[in-house]
C-alpha cells in the first residue's frame, strides 16, 4: 500500500570517504502516513541483483550525520523520521556497486500504533553506476 513511498528515484549512488569508495547509499520516504520516532522502524532490507545484503552492513541516518546500525536504531527515540523527509540508507561494501547496471531492491517496514503487523513497502530500481 505504501510501495510508492519507497526508494526515491535517482538517489542510489556510491559513497566515498577519504578517497575510498566505502559503499553505496539511497533514500526512502516512510511507509506510513505520519512521522514516528526512528525506534519504530522495524527493518530495512537491501538486495542487489537478487542477492540480499547482510542486514549488519546497513546503516541508517535521518540527518546524514549520525549513522546507526539497525540494532542501534531500536533505541533512537529522540529523533523522528518525519513524513516527507527521507531516511538515508547506506550499505557498507568496499568498492560500492561496480560499474554498470544493477537491480537494487529496497524493503522498508515500520511499526504503527494500532495495526498488529508492520507496514512494509518494497521497490526495485535499475541503478546505473558510471
Amino acid at each position: 500500500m505504501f510501495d510508492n513511498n519507497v526508494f526515491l528515484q535517482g538517489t542510489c549512488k556510491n559513497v566515498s570517504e577519504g578517497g575510498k569508495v566505502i559503499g553505496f547509499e539511497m533514500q526512502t520516504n516512510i511507509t506510513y502516513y505520519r512521522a514516528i520516532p526512528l525506534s519504530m522502524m522495524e527493518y530495512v532490507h537491501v538486495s542487489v541483483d537478487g542477492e540480499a545484503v547482510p542486514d549488519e552492513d546497513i546503516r541508517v541516518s535521518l540527518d546524514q550525520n549520525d549513522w546507526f546500525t539497525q540494532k542501534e536504531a531500536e533505541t533512537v527515540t529522540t529523533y523522528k523520521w518525519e513524513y516527507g523527509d527521507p531516511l538515508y540508507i547506506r550499505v557498507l561494501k568496499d568498492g560500492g556497486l561496480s560499474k554498470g547496471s544493477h537491480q537494487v531492491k529496497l524493503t522498508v517496514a515500520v511499526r504503527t500504533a494500532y495495526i498488529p503487523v508492520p507496514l512494509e513497502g518494497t521497490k526495485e530500481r535499475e541503478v546505473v553506476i558510471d
Partner: protein
Amino acid sequence: MSRIKAGVSLYSLQDQYLTKKMTLEDIIHYVKECGAEGIEILPDQMLKGAPDLTDEQVADWHRMLKETGLQPVIADVFLNTNLYKNRTLTHRECIDLLIKEIKQANRLGIHLIRLVSMVPYWVIEPLLPYCEKYDVTIAIEVHAGMAFDVKATNDFINEVKRLKTPYAGIVIDTGIFCRKFPRVVKNYELNNGASPEMFDYCDKLLDQGTDLHAVIRQNGGKLPEDFVATWKTHEDEIFGPLCDGYENYPYEVMDDLMPYIKHFHFKMFEMTDEGPEYSIDFKGLLQYLHDHNYDGYVCTEYEGNRFTLPGHPTVEREQVARNVKYVQACLKEIQG
C-alpha cells in the same frame, strides 16, 4: 437545533505534502478556497517535531489560521505503545505521552483530540485533569474493522459513559457506512492481480445489508469458506483478509451514542462525476445527523489517494474540492 459545519482533514492532501507539491501553507489556503470552515490535522504528519513544537511553528500556525479564518477543529493523535521493539509502554508512559499531546493541542488552539482506534480505555480518567486544565476533549475513533464489535472500542465507550464527562467521547469514521465496495479499491487490487469474484462476493453482502466483517464475526472469527473459494491468485490471499475493512452499519447504530459523538471523519474514496460518493451516502447521513441535532464538524477524509493506479496522478485536490462542495450543498438543502 443542529449546526453541522464542513471541514477538511489535511490527511486528504497527504500525497501533495509528501511529494512536496504543496506545503502546509499551500494546503491550508487551498482548503479555504474549497469552501471549508474548519480543518483537522495530524500533527505527526505535517508539523515537524510534534509534539515538541517550537514557538515559531506555533506562531506560524496561528498566522495561517488568521489569514484564512479557518477553525482548527481537531488534532488526530496516535499513541506509540510500541515505541520500543522489546516491550510495550507502561500505563504511566502512555499517559505521559498523551499529556504532551493535550498540551500541544492547547498551544495550537485546538479543543478536540481524536485518539486512534485501540487506545486503551484506562487513559481517560488520569487524563481528565489535563483535559479540563487545557480545555481539550479526547475522543476515540470508531473505524471500520475496529468498530462496535471490538473490545477495545467498546471498553472505551463504556468508560466514557461511566465517567459522565464532557471531556471524553467518540469520533465516527464513515467507513462503517459503506453501502457499496469502494470501486477505486477494487480497481487498484484488480490491477495488482486480484480476482473480481472476491469483490462480487463483498458487494453481494453489502447489497443484502450486511458486510464481510459481520459475516466473519458470525462465523466465529473465520473467513467464510465460500469467500475463500473465490480466491485464485496470490494477491487474493494478501488482500482477501483485508476486505473486511468496509462495514455496513445502519445509521441507527448511533441512536444511543449521539450525546458522546464529538466529530465525524467523512471518509471518502471516490466522488463520482454524477455527484455523490460511490460507496457512502453522505446526504442520507447528514439528514440523520440533522434530525438528531448533531452540532459539530464533519471533516472530509479522502482515502482514495492510496488507491491511485500506477502511472496515474493522484486526484486529491479535485476530490477534496468535490466532496466539500457536495457536503455544503447537502447542508444548504437540509439546514437551510
